[in-house]
């Protein structure tokens, strides 16, 4: 018997990029779920071949606007590893600050602008302005903090050219940094209060199932967003150079984003994975919120990713004042320009939505081979599985909100399809 298509989310709205959801049934049961990605093929890995390492970092940052910092950061790290570039401590700390700015921008955008409207059955954050004025205004000013801090280090809110191999073009002044240190204290209070509000929202439980998680394991044993090894919920740990073993990328016909599996099973990366695997290393108020809200449900329900992102954003605000003090105490340094001509290097950073791998082979400062694996390419298989579990339950109940509920799962993952959510249509045949 042919599969019958029951639910068709033509385009997912409120995500970054273009994708949709198709649910097929057979004999009254959900047969398969396809999250199709029709964002056209851009083939960045092919087009960077023959480009210089400096041209490469400008190009790969443009894979994604929301995680432009993570892409540029991962690319610079992999190239510096390949060519044995050692950057001074001040540069390393400025890069942490740059990365935290992106976390604030991305997590606030996702939780407040993209995910929150679902919980109030609204079309957008702007539509919530008359009824939830304070929350919307708070989101706008908090995101502005993130984008302005990105601009300070990046040169622009999106695709800035200031972060270079070996250092930063322009280093911010102490006065500029002081402003962001002061403001971080104010926003820490705001997001902490919002976490309490989020904690009261009912979290749907229709999609629960077991899965696997992965994230970078920071070498200093602290919480953080980069590492030389990857930690897996199975208890295993691998060096980032083994990334192909962890992702096993494959092409599927319904998506221009590739897919990944580990041990032949889907897995999840992102804020939820990080808090499940290394959340006990959080400090300060972020740790208090984690202890208060973390429970075993997080391991079976991706919708908790929203709360995990809020806790990470709080952690970033808490880190920034101390980090800025450390940066100010160090002398400015020149951009490192003396490095090898050839080499191979792989780096992983945690983008806001999960582990991001950049791997290069370089000859005469030109890219010979590039391999980039994005978080979304890693977790799409798991999104399909969670949607399948949910669709079985919701269709059995004849739930009137099925499309919205399925979209909420996809949105909770914060997919960066360079993607977006358009409409979900229910096609009953």
């Amino acid at each position, binding site marked *: 018997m042919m599969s019958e298509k029951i639910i068709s989310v033509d385009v997912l*709205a*409120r*995500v970054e*990029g*273009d994708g949709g959801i198709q649910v097929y049934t057979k004999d009254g049961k959900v047969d398969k779920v396809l999250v*199709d*990605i*029709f*964002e*056209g*093929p851009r*083939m960045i*890995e*092919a*087009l960077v071949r023959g480009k210089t390492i400096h*041209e490469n970092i*400008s*190009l790969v940052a*443009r*894979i*994604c*606007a*929301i995680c*432009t910092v993570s892409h540029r950061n991962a690319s610079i790290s992999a190239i510096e590893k390949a060519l044995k570039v050692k950057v001074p401590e001040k540069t390393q700390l400025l890069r942490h600050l740059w990365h935290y700015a992106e976390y604030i921008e991305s997590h606030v*955008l996702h939780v407040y*602008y993209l995910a929150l*409207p679902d919980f109030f059955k609204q*079309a*957008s*954050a*702007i*539509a919530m302005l008359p009824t939830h004025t304070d929350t919307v205004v708070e989101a*706008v000013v908090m*995101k*502005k903090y993130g*984008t302005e801090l990105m601009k300070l280090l990046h*040169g*622009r*809110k*999106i*695709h*800035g*050219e*200031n972060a*270079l191999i070996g250092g930063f*073009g*322009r280093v911010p002044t102490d006065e500029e940094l002081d402003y962001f240190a002061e403001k971080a204290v104010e926003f820490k209070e705001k997001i902490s209060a919002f976490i309490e509000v989020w904690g009261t929202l009912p979290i749907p439980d229709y999609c629960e199932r077991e899965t696997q998680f992965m994230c970078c394991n920071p070498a200093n044993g602290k919480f953080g967003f980069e590492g030389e090894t990857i930690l897996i919920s199975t208890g295993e740990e691998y060096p980032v150079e083994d990334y192909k073993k962890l992702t096993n990328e494959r*092409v599927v*016909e*319904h*998506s*221009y984003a*590739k897919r990944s599996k580990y041990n032949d099973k889907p897995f999840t990366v992102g804020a939820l994975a990080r808090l499940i695997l290394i959340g006990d290393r959080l400090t300060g108020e972020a740790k208090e919120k984690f202890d208060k809200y973390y429970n075993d449900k997080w391991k079976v329900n991706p919708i908790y990713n929203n709360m995990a992102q809020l806790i990470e954003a709080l952690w970033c605000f808490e880190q920034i004042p101390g980090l800025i003090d450390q940066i100010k105490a160090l002398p400015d340094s020149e951009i490192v320009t003396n490095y090898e001509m050839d080499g191979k290097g792989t780096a992983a950073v945690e983008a806001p939505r999960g582990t991001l791998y950049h791997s290069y082979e370089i000859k005469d400062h030109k890219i010979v081979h590039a391999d980039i694996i994005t978080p979304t390419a890693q977790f799409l298989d798991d999104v399909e599985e969670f949607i399948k579990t949910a669709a079985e339950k919701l269709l059995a109940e004849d739930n009137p909100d099925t499309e919205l509920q399925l*979209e909420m799962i996809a949105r909770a993952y914060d997919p960066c399809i*360079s*993607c*977006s*959510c*358009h*409409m979900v249509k229910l096609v009953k045949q």
Partner: protein
Amino acid sequence: MWKREKKPVVGVFGFSGCAGDQLAILHMEDELVDFFTSADIKFFHMAQSHQEVEHVDIALVEGSINTDKQLAELKEIRKKADIVVALGTCATHGGIQYLGDNEKEFEERMLLVYGKDGKIPEFSELVGNPIPAKPIHKFIEVDFSIPGCPIAKENFIPIYTKLISGLKPSKYPYPVCIECKFQGNDCFLLHGEYCLGPVTAGGCDACCPTFGVPCVGCFGAYEGANFESMIEKLIEIGLTEEDAKRKLMMFGGEATELALKGEK
């Protein structure tokens, strides 16, 4: 042009790219509420759900066209819109993924990225068949272009404000190099360092040189660009001709491609 009798209906549509131009709108935090209230934003799928449109006064279209499915959707948008604005370098020039008419290289890239057993796999009708990336004016009539990777609000707001007021915007007249002078910056080229400011369309307020880093050309070519002289200068400061042309082509799209071939 449409006439302002009511708030204009606006749609923001996205094709292949990084979604940076839609995001640049969301990143205009100070103007965000004005953006969403000064017009009737009927379609903006990165920001809102529940949308279906029969007609829009103004369509802002981001991204290059990379599949036949996107091409069909683009043609639908043209039918529904009075004014179509290409938003960002992917839509205006094809973006970093632009390949010109080089079909052979397109096949090679597809094979390299998606190839299996030496063949390009078939993609389902859900996602459409791949085609070489092109800017939207190759397929439909475009009324205005706002380049940038991503767009800058210094350029976007004046043009958009005129459009939603029923007025005809004027083209942005300067290359980055002039804006850089307005900012009072020192010149990279005069110090023997690479910069594409003289041949790149302005509208960004020379944000990169003002920050102390050279212009990489992300707004595409300025209409009156003197490529010959630019290449000469780049060779003089130590680049090879090949290096210079490759840098010019990073964001240059068709206009630069034709100019470099001597066909314009």
